[in-house]
């Protein structure tokens, strides 16, 4: 089956690789800025779909459908972000006679509304945080206002990626935070509907990977811990979650399965929970797409999730059974972002001047980086993912640290050293983490190692010295050289 990948960057390369592994042709689409991108060069065919702005290219439904028509693609894989959870897109793809690699449009409509998802989860018997499952009205009625327990989260009903969320600590702040959340949600998702959710803090973010065939069968492929987050953006994820009791694990799997069956879920999905400090799980939402952190599940289960998604789309049945899914070892992923911890994690731009990705035992790198690649503010700041697998958590952690130290990326500041700071911290090593942990760490740029700095001082001074020496011995200008030659010839 010919697959069109409606995405860019590392996930586009990932999906195209799965197509290659299946022997299926892959079509890439690209914006003006991505003309020379790796996913474009990797694919069998590549079609330009518009100018740099995402709204004009990767979010441009007519352009994507036209690209599929022109190339004869039979299915579209939306990746993550962009149109991956957009029910209108899924419907348009199916109306065009193509297969949408993901859940059914009706499922996307339901999961896209977080309140509807909560109602569904509650009905299916999942533990859900207390609170009204209805949108917040423009003016909060007195009886509701009286019931609000602070601190409380104001969350956008639509959308994800940690946006459209604000925390109100006191009743006085509430109105202003609601307004801010509404503004952000309107700008990011075109919908300013919000709802209130009690704040669970400290909490562990634990999510369960599911795969359904849309015909009543579903699999659970283990859980992931994603508590290492900065401003609700995940930085480090691992599978399995450290230190979960077997009974809690089964409780989570059971809850996820019940929801999957209630939705008659098709394709890949992730059921998210927050574990409070008493170890009680609370359903948050379901993500109806492949996720950035899927490699950790792939490494501990041994299955290629994207390939399973693709084959499911063609064959319509699950090829693997639950008893084949056995989690082995531990996998940890670190996200390399173009953000400068020394400048408050401000997104950085530049050009990749030097690149050397890590390798060796137990290391996997998912990236679309290449030397000379421009790093711009047009799309998200994810540069690469480094994932380590080990037979236990200590081995995986050691390998990940080794791999991050091997990584050479020149031309833009990244969060590499901050990631190492987290991975070397006693709390992370002990697995004693929660969603507030990263906020307690202050980035320590270039901390320690005066010996290394002295050597670098020496090396750069020698390099400057060498350059000075070179400019003195070389002819002062090309024309000077020619003049000298001409003079010699005249002699």
């Amino acid at each position, binding site marked *: 089956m010919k697959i069109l990948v409606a995405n860019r960057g590392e996930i586009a390369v990932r999906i195209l690789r799965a197509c290659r592994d299946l022997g299926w042709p892959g079509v890439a689409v690209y914006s003006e800025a991505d003309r020379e991108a790796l996913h474009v060069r990797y694919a069998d065919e590549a079609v330009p779909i518009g100018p740099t702005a995402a709204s004009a290219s990767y979010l441009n439904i007519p352009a994507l459908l036209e690209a599929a028509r022109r190339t004869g693609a039979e299915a579209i894989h939306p990746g993550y972000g962009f149109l991956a959870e957009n029910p209108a897109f899924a419907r348009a793809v199916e109306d065009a006679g193509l297969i949408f690699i993901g859940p059914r449009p009706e499922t996307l409509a339901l999961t896209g509304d977080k309140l509807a998802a909560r109602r569904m989860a509650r009905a299916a018997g999942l533990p859900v945080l207390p609170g009204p499952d209805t949108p917040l009205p423009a003016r909060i009625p007195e009886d509701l206002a009286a019931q609000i327990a602070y601190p409380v989260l104001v969350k956008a009903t639509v959308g994800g990626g940690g946006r459209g969320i604000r925390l109100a600590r006191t009743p006085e702040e509430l109105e202003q935070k609601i307004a801010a959340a509404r503004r952000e949600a309107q700008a990011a998702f075109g919908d300013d509907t919000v709802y209130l959710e009690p704040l669970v803090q400290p909490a562990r973010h634990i999510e369960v990977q599911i795969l359904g065939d849309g015909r009543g069968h579903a699999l659970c492929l283990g859980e992931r811990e994603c508590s290492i987050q900065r401003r609700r953006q995940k930085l480090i994820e691992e599978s399995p979650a450290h230190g979960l009791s077997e009974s809690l694990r089964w409780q989570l799997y059971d809850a996820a399965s019940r929801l999957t069956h209630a939705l008659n879920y098709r394709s890949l999905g992730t059921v998210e929970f927050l574990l409070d400090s008493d170890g009680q799980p609370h359903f948050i939402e379901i993500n109806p797409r492949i996720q950035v952190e899927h490699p950790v599940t792939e490494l501990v289960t041994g299955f290629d999730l994207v390939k399973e998604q693709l084959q499911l789309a063609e064959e319509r049945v699950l090829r693997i059974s639950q008893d084949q899914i056995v989690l082995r070892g531990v996998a940890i992923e670190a996200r390399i972002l173009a953000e400068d911890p020394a400048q408050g994690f401000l997104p950085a731009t530049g050009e990749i001047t*030097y690149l050397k990705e890590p390798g060796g035992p137990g290391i996997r790198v998912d990236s679309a980086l290449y030397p000379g690649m421009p790093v711009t503010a047009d799309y998200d700041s994810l540069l690469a993912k480094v994932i380590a697998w080990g037979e236990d958590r200590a081995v995986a952690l050691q390998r990940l640290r080794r791999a991050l*130290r091997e990584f050479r990326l020149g031309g833009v500041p990244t969060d590499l050293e901050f990631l190492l700071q987290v991975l070397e911290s006693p709390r992370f090593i002990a697995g004693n983490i929660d969603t507030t942990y990263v906020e307690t760490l202050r980035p320590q740029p*270039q901390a320690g*190692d005066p010996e290394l700095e002295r*050597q*670098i001082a020496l090396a*750069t001074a020698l*390099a400057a010295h060498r350059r000075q020496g070179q400019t003195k011995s070389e002819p002062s200008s090309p024309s000077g050289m020619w003049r000298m030659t001409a003079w010699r010839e005249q002699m």
Partner: protein
Amino acid sequence: MSIYCVSIGEREYRVNVTDTQLLVDGEPLPGRLIPLSGKGLYLLRRGNQNLELHLNVGERSTYEVLAAGRRIIACVKPAHRRSRRWPQLHQTGDLVAPMPGMVVAVPVREGERVVQGQSLVVLESMKMQMQLRAPCAGRVARVAIWPGSQVKKNALLVRVEESSPAPNVGELNVHERGTI
């Protein structure tokens, strides 16, 4: 001898490069910088140890250095071009220019032990040369100028860290050039 001031973050390192010696902040740090075939790639070889570095030269003498898993920005300036980075406070052992002029000779090196009254700098000013002498005995902690440097009045020339004189006075090199 060439002196370079390398700024890394908040810290500053002084690197002395001569034909026979390499010093970082007055301490010897022997090593060779070997260019590798890849552009920007070097090895800093010290004995049996190799440190691989990738150097990318940017604007205003800044180097982006990738080494040992770190990304460090180093700013390298030849010492005589630096201005105003010196602390303005003058300590006991500071030798300053009594008037504006040009440095003709610097007969001492950093790290060298000197005695009080020893000639440290020969300064030419208003067509006269003068020897400027060590205000105290001790170790030459900093040499802030170079033959050819133009200095303003009160500019710091040499900083001597006060300490008891070296036991073997005969080792000292004392040059006399012109007199006032």
